[in-house]
């Protein structure tokens, strides 16, 4: 008959209590958030001040303090979807390979003759040899430079594809190596974007890789997508290139392997540079904003790692008296003349900087250059006031919906309606508890999902109550009717909710942003509503029935 084992009762009560206690901090969102911020800051810095202690005291340590994350549409902030031009890296890789290729071909000079690098499409390295008969030896020599690909899928293949076209050796990265490179580029880009966003000290940014070559960046609380782009969109690629000449002609003739770049400070001035840099920003270990000791203008200091220091030292000692260019993102910041060999591996850049510029540049250089350019496919800015308005509107709507459904249920089912209402209140508590526990993000459609769940959650109860009503007609006593009502309605409840749950899963897998937030609350709402309907209300009804033992019941 109507019995629920003790352990079962305990489990149900425990789950409900746990859910409610995890949901509770959300009722005091502001206090808990300030408490959490204070704790995080004290942990990060190790310093505790009176002000921080006071903030921390806003919420007792013993209580759960996890909160539901608010999505961008509720908190305000910026959202960017960036595409990384992964192909950019192939070119840099081949550039870096060029000295080795040159040396390898020089070793077999007797058979291949003189060599000359040619301009080529991005992602290709083309070298002309003067004795086409030696092509076989040339290809073999370059092939010897290839290494096995280091990746799970590319095992067994080599990094380079080398072929001969008449008198030209063409080197490209193999498909497996391109894939492995893409993966590294993306990891690096995500990491660098994260470092730059973290340096700016914003709260809970989301930085995720999406698909093969995209990065999703969401930063709550930032003023606009533009600010965010300024922060992360700069490649900050620093190189030191030998200077060939200076010109004011933007169409100046270039020899092979030379580039023409504009000057940052002097409009209309262009520098002809050798394309292959001596050292790049990759070899930097540190960079700080500073002031120039002599002139007092803002400057940025840098420190190379040993490899960079050696290369820089060798170049400067061999080229005393010649100018070299400091190039940042395709612009020449300055082109000083080398006065003496710089062997210590550190130096300083001065340009037409403001203090903010030098600070920002130092941050960017320290975080590292993005390996490839990023193109922004999607930008969204949501103001904090709009988010606050949405929360307020969502709250009112949820409360009204809640009250309306409760009244409706009590009017329709009397005491059983009250039980269902209690379950419904617990249900919303459980949804928030689970959302907080798994660190899910609540979005505006997510609030709609909760309101929808409020409406739909009573469905399982309605199914059971209607079934009990029907079973009561066959008049085999109220206890039997309640039991049959539950067991016979179960298959309908399971089928009905499983199909909706499938939809929630599909929405989660295929959706993004707010839609995903909706699917999360919908999915959680289905699970908790089935739980509260078949366990919690049943427990309430059975407990009530045990105490009162009514001869007849009215549902």
């Amino acid at each position, binding site marked *: 008959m109507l019995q629920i084992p003790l352990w079962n009762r305990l489990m149900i009560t425990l789950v409900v209590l746990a859910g409610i206690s995890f949901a509770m901090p959300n009722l005091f969102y502001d206090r808990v958030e300030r408490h959490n911020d204070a704790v995080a800051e004290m942990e990060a810095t190790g310093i505790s001040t009176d002000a921080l202690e006071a903030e921390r005291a806003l919420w007792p340590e013993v209580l759960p303090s996890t909160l539901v994350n608010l999505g961008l549409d509720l908190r305000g902030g910026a959202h960017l*979807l960036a595409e990384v031009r992964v192909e950019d890296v192939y070119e840099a890789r081949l550039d870096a390979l060029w000295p080795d290729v040159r040396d390898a071909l020089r070793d077999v000079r007797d058979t291949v003759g003189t060599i000359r690098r040619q301009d080529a499409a991005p992602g290709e390295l083309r070298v002309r040899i003067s004795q086409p008969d030696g092509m076989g030896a040339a290809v073999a020599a370059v092939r010897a430079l290839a290494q096995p690909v280091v990746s799970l899928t590319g095992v067994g293949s080599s990094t380079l594809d080398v072929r001969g076209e008449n008198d030209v050796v063409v080197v490209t990265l193999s498909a497996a190596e391109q894939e492995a490179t893409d993966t590294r580029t993306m990891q690096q880009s995500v990491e660098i974007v994260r470092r730059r966003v973290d340096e700016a000290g914003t709260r809970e940014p989301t930085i995720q890789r999406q698909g093969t070559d995209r990065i999703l960046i969401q930063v709550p609380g930032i003023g606009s*997508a*533009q600010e965010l782009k300024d922060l992360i969109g700069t490649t900050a690629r620093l190189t030191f290139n030998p200077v060939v000449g200076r010109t004011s002609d933007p169409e100046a003739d270039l020899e092979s392997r030379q580039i023409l770049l504009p000057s940052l400070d002097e409009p209309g001035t262009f520098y002809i540079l050798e394309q292959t840099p001596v050292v790049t920003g990759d070899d930097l270990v540190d960079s700080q904003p500073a002031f120039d000791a002599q002139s007092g203008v803002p400057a940025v200091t840098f420190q190379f790692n040993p490899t960079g220091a050696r290369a820089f030292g060798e170049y400067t000692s061999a080229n005393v008296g010649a100018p070299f260019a400091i190039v940042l993102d395709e612009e020449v910041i300055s082109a000083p003349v080398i006065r003496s060999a710089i062997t210590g591996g550190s130096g300083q850049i001065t340009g037409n900087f403001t203090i903010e510029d030098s600070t920002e540049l130092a941050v960017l250089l320290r975080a590292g250059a993005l390996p490839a350019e990023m*193109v*922004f*496919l*999607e*930008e*969204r*800015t*949501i*103001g904090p*006031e*709009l988010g606050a308005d*949405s929360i307020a509107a969502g709250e*009112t*709507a*949820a409360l*009204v*919906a809640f009250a*309306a*459904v409760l009244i409706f*249920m009590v*009017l*329709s*089912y*009397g005491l059983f309606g009250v039980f269902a209402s209690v379950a419904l209140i617990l249900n919303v508590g459980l949804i928030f508890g689970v959302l907080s526990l798994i660190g899910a993000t609540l979005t505006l*459609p997510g609030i*709609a999902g909760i*309101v*929808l769940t*409020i*409406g*739909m959650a*009573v469905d399982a109860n*309605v*199914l059971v109550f*209607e079934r009990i*009503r*029907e079973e009561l007609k066959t008049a085999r006593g109220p206890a039997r009717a309640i039991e049959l009502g539950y067991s*016979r309605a*179960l*298959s*309908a409840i399971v*089928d*009905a*909710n*499983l*199909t*909706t749950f499938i*939809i*929630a899963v*599909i*929405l989660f897998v*295929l*959706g*993004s942003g*707010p839609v995903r937030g*909706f*699917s999360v609350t919908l999915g959680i709402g289905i699970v908790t509503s089935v739980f509260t309907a078949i366990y919690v209300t049943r427990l309430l009804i059975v407990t009530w029935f045990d105490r009162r033992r009514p001869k007849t019941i009215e549902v």
Partner: protein
Amino acid sequence: MRLRLVPDETNIDFFKYARATFGASIVAMVLSLGIWFAMGLNFGIDFLGGTTLRTEASEPVNVGEYRAALDALALGDVSITEVFDPTFAADQHVAMIRIQAQDGQEAVTPETINAVQDALRTVYPEMTFPSVESVGPKVSGELITTALIAVAASLAAILIYIWLRFEWQFSVGAVAALIHDIVLTVGVFSLLQIRFDLATIAALLTIVGYSINDTVVIFDRLRENLIKYKQRPLQDVMNLSANETLSRTLMTSGTTLLALLALLILGGDVIRGFVFAIFWGVIVGTYSSIYVAKNVVLMIGVKRDWSKPDNKSGTQFSNIDA
């Protein structure tokens, strides 16, 4: 005294006007498709690419002046809509401005957005822009594909699930009802030119979820009654099942609509389109589970002997200690 949406005993013949209701459904679907093709959908930037700005000023929105200010920038197709909402303050005047995707650009450049904002500030200097969103054509194209896949995937998943749990005839009936709901909802979006964006797709899928929920409950009862009354004609058993579950169907739709109505009126304009879609879908979905899904099953006919193998699958959940 209890509130009863339907009397305890009902004996409505849902097939009495089967031709009329089914015909009406078909006509409505054809009309929806017709409107859809004739008027098109008011796609949001999620699907079209482009930029939307939400403007807020304390002076009333003057669409003409806004347009005149923007015309100088030659941005192509610009649409300006005033937004009304009961939750707005008296001096809160909001408009949505949509600018088409600019040729040769992915997301709209900051220069364009700044130019637009400066131009609008010539109308009201203290105008603010609570949200600015920009989607490039590349992403919007993919979003359309993903949305279509999502809708197709959910229909397929439901087709398979119902097939496994019931019979293939039931799954055809259920999916027919779902397509009916989707088409009618898209038709209304086209007719009223409500913005159709990614959230609308989510709403469509929610409708699918709700409608199938409703249909399954009736099917579940039908299966049970088919075992109970082996000799009665299918149409009678269907009527009996629909009548037995009618109270529940209307109760659940009632509470859901009540909750949605609160959201529709008080939930703010940002999600109104989304909520409206679900609201409409719940009405259509309730109708379709009573009048479309069963009719389709009746037309195809269904295996009557449920006693042996299917009996097992039908009750496999009944043994769970609830």
